[in-house]
């Protein structure tokens, strides 16, 4: 039976409610459940989940509801009690501090507030961010579903006022040594970053820390900043600030290939500073960067290495190898490949970070056949049927088709755990993954990966097989989850951990060339 409970004018954020939905689903007697705010999207979702009920016709986005398919009315009583319990628990955890309901009240309460992190539903963003900019408060805008027109208006206003408006869809920034939203604890140092890609920026900033240097500021722009419509407004704003910043000696710019006229504008600007500028337009035109006198990169790791070399007043060189001795790497590859059966020939890349998945596909290219994906390099490799994978596949599990009604897999790794079980079958030779730690991420992504890989290997063992799993961890020792602890958890399950996404991809390339030679 379908049961629905509605609370008028009760607001909770979507991630909290999605995580609660997940817990409630484990209650015995609950077949399906959705705990959410009465937004259009959630109402549509209740229909898709078979939880439609006429009571839901009258809810507004400010009403909270529980819709469940349960075996009896008693089970629904348990569901409601448990939801209340989880919500109260959350309230206690978050303390009893005063919480202003408007920006005016917030600023009265916190005079001198200089930064706002905004992660509210997209349709309310422009109004609220406008108010913040009016009060000279810099903004990190995490929300998505903000129109290009709104983004342009907000960024134009920020530029006019000399403020940061990082986003929309900006997940990563480190300001004055403080990691905001999805960022890593990187020590202070001479390298300033402006990044239009979240996990790409996390990878570069973390590796800069691993290579012994540090960051002055890490400014995010949101993924659309370098498209023609926005014209790189925030990257230019960020570059100007880093050029004028006495703590910044080297500047790093990270973005997917920009619109040509925006690339030109950005590269022209690099000529205006004596500070060396390292540019990774992931997979983009390197010659154009070189011609502008900046340093082009082969990978995100290469960007970090070049920036650190320049900060140490050394000459940067292209990096294309491994930290470990290559002979030892080859032995590891041989050892791993020798355990495969002849029909294990396919690749599965299962990523939580979109830029890392993109980098992997660009590095692998067409060396052992095309790679199918939900973010393919060529349209002909677009995956049609996500439930029935064939051939080589690399997925960005942070994309919309995987996150309807569920939090991003960096927050809730169970999305990927489910895919491990369905997507790694007896035809797969090697599985390539990222593990992104740091603030914002799940409290133990490596532990979750390790336990689901254990399950996958047990399933394959029953067929007399096992799969090679290759991982890299984006993060630092200073992150709450710890780089070393995370690495140990993965290695305990036989997962091969390389120091960067680029090296993990190169390892997989070696595995695949062996597999396809044999």
């Amino acid at each position, binding site marked *: 039976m379908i049961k629905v409970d509605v609370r008028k004018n009760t607001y909770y954020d979507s991630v909290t409610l999605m995580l609660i939905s997940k817990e409630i689903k484990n209650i015995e007697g609950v077949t399906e459940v959705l705990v959410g705010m009465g937004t259009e999207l959630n109402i549509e979702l209740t229909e898709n989940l078979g939880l439609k009920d006429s009571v839901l016709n009258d809810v507004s986005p400010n009403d909270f509801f529980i819709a469940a398919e349960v075996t009896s009315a008693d089970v629904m009583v348990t569901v409601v009690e448990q939801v209340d319990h989880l919500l109260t628990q959350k309230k206690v955890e978050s303390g009893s501090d005063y919480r202003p309901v408007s920006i005016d009240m917030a600023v009265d309460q916190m005079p001198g507030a200089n930064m706002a992190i905004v992660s509210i539903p997209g349709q309310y963003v422009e109004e609220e961010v406008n108010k913040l900019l009016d009060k000279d408060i810099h903004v990190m805008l995490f929300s998505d579903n903000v129109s290009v027109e709104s983004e342009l208006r907000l960024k134009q206003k920020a530029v006019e006022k000399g403020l940061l408006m990082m986003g929309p869809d900006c997940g990563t920034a480190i*300001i004055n040594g403080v990691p905001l939203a999805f960022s890593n604890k990187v020590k202070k140092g001479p390298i300033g970053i402006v990044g239009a890609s979240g996990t790409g920026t996390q990878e570069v900033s973390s590796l800069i820390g691993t290579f012994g240097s540090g960051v002055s500021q890490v400014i995010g722009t949101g993924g659309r900043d370098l498209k023609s419509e926005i014209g790189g407004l925030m990257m230019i704003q960020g570059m100007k*600030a880093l050029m004028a910043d006495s703590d910044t000696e080297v500047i790093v710019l990270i973005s997917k290939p920009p619109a040509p006229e925006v690339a030109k504008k950005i590269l022209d600007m690099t000529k205006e500073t004596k500070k060396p500028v390292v540019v990774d337009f992931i997979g983009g035109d390197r010659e154009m960067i070189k011609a502008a006198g900046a340093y082009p990169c082969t990978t995100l790791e290469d960007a970090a290495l070049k920036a650190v070399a320049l900060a140490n007043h050394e000459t940067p060189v292209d990096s294309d190898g491994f930290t470990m001795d290559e002979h030892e790497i080859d032995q590891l590859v041989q050892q791993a490949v020798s355990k495969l059966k002849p029909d294990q020939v396919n690749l599965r890349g299962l990523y939580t970070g979109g830029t890392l998945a993109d980098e992997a596909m660009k590095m692998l290219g067409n060396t052992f056949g095309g790679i199918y994906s939900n973010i393919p390099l060529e349209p002909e490799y677009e995956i049609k049927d996500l439930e029935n994978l064939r051939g080589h596949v690399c997925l960005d599990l942070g994309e919309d088709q995987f996150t309807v009604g569920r939090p991003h897999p960096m927050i809730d790794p169970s999305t990927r755990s489910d895919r491990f079980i369905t997507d790694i079958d007896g035809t797969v030779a090697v599985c390539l993954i990222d593990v992104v730690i740091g603030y914002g991420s799940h409290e133990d992504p490596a532990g979750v990966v390790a336990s689901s890989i254990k399950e996958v290997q047990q399933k394959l063992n029953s067929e007399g097989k096992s799969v090679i799993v290759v991982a890299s961890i984006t993060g630092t020792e200073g992150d709450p989850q710890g780089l070393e602890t995370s690495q140990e958890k993965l290695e305990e399950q036989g997962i091969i951990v390389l120091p960067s996404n680029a090296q993990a991809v190169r390892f997989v390339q070696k595995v695949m060339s062996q597999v396809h030679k044999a």
Partner: protein
Amino acid sequence: MNKINKLFTQELKVINMGLESFQKDLKSQDVDAMQMNWRPTAGGNPKMMDLLSRLKTKK
């Protein structure tokens, strides 16, 4: 000094509007961070929101 470079010299004071975990992470690092109890304007009712915004522009 422009406002961004001025920000680089200040202690961060953060207003968090939305996901509470972002504020909790900042608090755990002893950063001054305030959680707002944000609610959609007019309870998210599009008609009311439209009326309110028309009132505001008339002001």
